């Protein structure tokens, strides 16, 4: 975070230099503006600019002007409109509604964050009455896009609630006309052919956990059964994918997505993990670091690692992914694509954990099995660990207005507006980054935290620094070509159930 650059604040042309942030990447000065646009300049040129010595006839002047760095030649209203587009997410309410159908789970993963209970703890199942109130509550949020995501525990352990919520939401949406997205996050081990066909019929997308090749996946994700979790998960992924293809859906859009979590056992196996994703037809992998809360608190010594170790893993694996892309194998790294969308396009991908302000309580809400409403799933986990700080209300008693205006939601927004945070306000990555106060709270007991000590800050800073490093050394344009393709996200067709490309009887 330090800036290894010699500057002289006395030589500053305050009438000519507009607002920007800066840092150093590979010996060049990286300048960024309020909407994430960037420019690399040589240190001597940077100092000339600061002193107001770049002449209008120079190509550098136009490059600086186009990025709104020249104060006395700035298209102010144009910049304001770009900022308006970049912050478009502020105009909508919570679009992601995570429903914890049960805490019961048949897995005991080493890093579990989900506060699971054993399979016989049916008192942690959501009731149908509560499920109905959750759907009613979610539909009153002021957002045109409404996504229900089933989580757990293992959500399919309480299958009747999934069926009810899907059917009730689809019926309700005949009158509400929102863009409705339904998704299930499942380990797939309780799946049946009948349930699979029902999910595909209803347009419910499926996301599972896949940590890599069989030995690695099974080591991380302990299952009560003696079978291989990997074998069961991948078999169901293949069946789902085949079913969508059989019904004429575009396989690039309709396939089981997966999330991977990096443990110590993953650190030297990045390419193998990527290969496993490619084999399963998955086009996006999110290299997610372990969060030392949930079960991971207890197993941290065994499976944890430093952020430096994670970033080394990330860089090696990203290099491999880029190499695959050069060879015509198309897979993207998800966190990179989020940052690249912020860096290279006029839009923001509205990723709740990486925006300013954060989306806890304003872009997403989580509903525990008993109907309690939390800022997000991490807030629910904090409650399970004994702290109700992130509880916003209950579907029995709270209105949407009360929840969205809850003091905790406001506090989290204040704690994540980067323009007002130490270090963030002048960080070169500020306009493309984001803060997650809940992570700060989990680590430090303080929603503000201290930036240089925050693992999330180290992760986001390290990843962005590496992306800019790759861009600054991209002499033949091949990296930029791949990166720009990663910023194009085709959305699946809107309101469910989806219309298949060719009707095939199920």
């Amino acid at each position: 975070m330090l800036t290894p650059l010699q500057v002289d604040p006395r030589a500053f042309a305050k009438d000519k230099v507009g607002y920007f942030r800066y840092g150093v990447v590979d010996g060049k000065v990286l300048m960024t503006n309020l909407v994430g646009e960037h420019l690399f300049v040589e240190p001597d040129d940077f100092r000339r600019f600061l002193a107001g010595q770049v002449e209008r006839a120079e190509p550098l002047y136009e490059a600086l002007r186009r990025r709104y760095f020249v104060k006395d030649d700035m298209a102010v209203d144009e910049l304001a409109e770009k900022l308006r587009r970049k912050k478009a997410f502020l105009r909508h309410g919570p679009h992601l509604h995570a429903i914890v159908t049960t805490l019961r789970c048949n897995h005991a993963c080493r890093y579990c964050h989900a506060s699971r209970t054993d399979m016989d703890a049916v008192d942690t199942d959501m009731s149908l009455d509560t499920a109905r109130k959750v759907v009613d509550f979610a539909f009153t949020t002021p957002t045109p896009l409404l996504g229900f995501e089933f989580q757990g525990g293992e959500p399919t352990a309480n299958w009747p609630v999934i069926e009810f919520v899907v059917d009730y939401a689809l019926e309700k949406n005949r009158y509400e006309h929102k863009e409705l997205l339904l998704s299930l996050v499942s380990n797939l081990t309780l799946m049946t052919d009948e349930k699979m066909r029902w999910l595909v019929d209803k347009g419910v997308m499926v996301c599972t956990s896949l940590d890599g090749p069989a030995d690695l996946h099974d080591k991380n994700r302990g299952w009560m059964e003696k079978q291989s979790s990997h074998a069961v998960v991948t078999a169901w992924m293949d069946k789902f994918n085949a079913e969508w293809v059989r019904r004429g859906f575009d396989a690039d859009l309709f396939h089981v997505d997966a999330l991977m979590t990096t443990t110590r056992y993953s650190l030297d196996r990045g390419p193998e993990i990527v290969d496993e994703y490619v084999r399963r037809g998955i086009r996006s992998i999110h290299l997610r670091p372990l969060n030392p809360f949930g079960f991971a608190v207890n197993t941290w010594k065994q499976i944890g690692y430093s952020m430096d170790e994670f970033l080394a893993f990330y860089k090696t694996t990203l290099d491999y992914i880029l190499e695959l892309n050069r060879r015509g194998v198309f897979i993207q790294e998800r966190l990179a694509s989020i940052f690249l969308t912020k860096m290279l396009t006029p839009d923001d991908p509205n990723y709740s954990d990486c925006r300013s302000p954060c989306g806890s309580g304003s872009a997403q809400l989580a509903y525990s099995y008993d109907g309690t409403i939390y800022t997000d799933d991490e807030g629910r986990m904090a409650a399970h660990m004994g702290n109700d700080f992130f509880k916003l209300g209950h579907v029995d008693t709270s209105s949407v207005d009360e929840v969205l205006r809850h003091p905790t939601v406001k506090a989290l927004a204040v704690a994540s507006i980067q323009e007002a945070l130490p270090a963030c306000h002048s960080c070169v990555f500020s306009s493309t980054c984001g803060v997650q106060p809940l992570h700060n709270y989990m680590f430090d007991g303080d929603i503000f935290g201290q930036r240089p000590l925050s693992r999330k800050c180290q992760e986001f800073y390290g990843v962005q620094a590496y992306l800019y490093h790759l861009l600054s050394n991209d002499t033949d344009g091949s990296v930029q070509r791949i990166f720009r393709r990663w910023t194009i996200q085709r959305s699946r067709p809107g309101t469910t159930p989806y219309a298949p490309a060719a009707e095939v009887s199920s």
Partner: protein
Amino acid sequence: MTENQLTTELAERRVRFQVDESVYDLDVIMGSAYLFLDRCYVFLDRVGDRRVQVVLRTRGAASEEELGALAGQFANELLNQALRKQIGEANGRLREYIMARALFSADGPSTIDRLLAELDAEEMASDDLDIPVPWEKPPGA
């Protein structure tokens, strides 16, 4: 702290020096100190009229050379923080105007959205990067 006054005192895992507040504002000093939190413990104290004492204590063992480098990095960061403060102050009202216009003006069709869409369409039409091709499809697919 001017060039002639960067006098450091070294002790085990510790380097101490003073900064002149008539040269660097307190928020510049504190902004610099904040960025050192991941590498050392930082103590600030006012030891005289407009003089702030900075003590940096490393988390592990450190040689005299490393301690001297730490003080040097702090001095460099003071300059960068001072520059950042100038950039912020010189553009404060402009930033407020831009933010207010972006966030609080009436909803409606954005002219820049239209312009960007037109530009996108033009660029896509002659784009040798194959940007219109979904990223997960091989070029030409």
